[in-house]
């Protein structure tokens, strides 16, 4: 029998779908019987979903122009 602690320790791999079929089946069995673990799995899945592929903010224009100035100088000097 799988405990909640066992379930939690495998949660990441379960959500990433990187578990072998046997262990996966055991975890799926566990969440049908344990409402708490079901909620944790569901809300963790949503957490990952919300963050996934979040585009970075455009970098501030002053930061960008300083970066480009520094690089242009570097490139003009040539690579070692």
């Amino acid at each position, binding site marked *: 029998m799988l405990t909640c602690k066992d379930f939690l320790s495998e949660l990441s791999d379960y959500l990433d779908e990187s578990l072998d079929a046997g262990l996966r089946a055991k975890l799926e069995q566990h969440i049908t019987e344990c409402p708490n673990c079901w909620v944790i799995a569901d809300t963790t899945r949503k957490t990952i979903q919300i963050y996934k592929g979040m585009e970075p903010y455009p970098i501030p224009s002053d930061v*960008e122009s300083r970066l480009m100035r520094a690089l242009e100088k570097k490139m003009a000097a040539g690579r070692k």
Partner: protein
Amino acid sequence: MTVSSQAGIDEATLVAQAREGDTAAFGELVRRYEGKIFRLAQHVTQSREDAEDVLQETFMKAYEHLDQFQGNSKFYTWIVRIAVNQALMKLRRRKTDKSVSLDDTIDTGEDTIVREIAAWDEDPEQRYSREELGGILDSAVQSLEPLYRSVFVLRDIDELSTEETADALGLSVPAVKSRLLRARLQLREKLTRYFKRKGDDAFAYL
């Protein structure tokens, strides 16, 4: 370096052109990844000023050492490794932060934190405006320990594989996995406050 004609070219070609001395090609690589590198640097250093230094140093070093890029990893993974090293050096120099190493041993498997168990709405993020949501998500990530933050940003925001994340951070695969699990659970906990289904909270005033 304002060349838009490079925008559709694939990464390997740009890298090859840059190695031949094509500065416009290198400029395009910078443009593709500067936002992600700046975000990563901000997440690790938690300082805009340090993040800007890291951003500059990363691309300067990348340009300088372009010959050493093997091409068997993604260009992005390669510059992430440079950026992480630069960011950690900043932290070490600052010395106020005790968790300066990403290699610090942490106990694994124990005390994975789950305090709040409440179901969320089906599309919980729709309760907030784009800006509000961005603020909530950012501050949740910022509140993670540096050890977990870098792993989470690379793995779940930038969508690097476990192996690429391990490679970029100089960590073992098991270390990445255990940190990722904790980061995800901590974030879940923090976001539950905002996203839980109304009515499930016994203490709700509204």
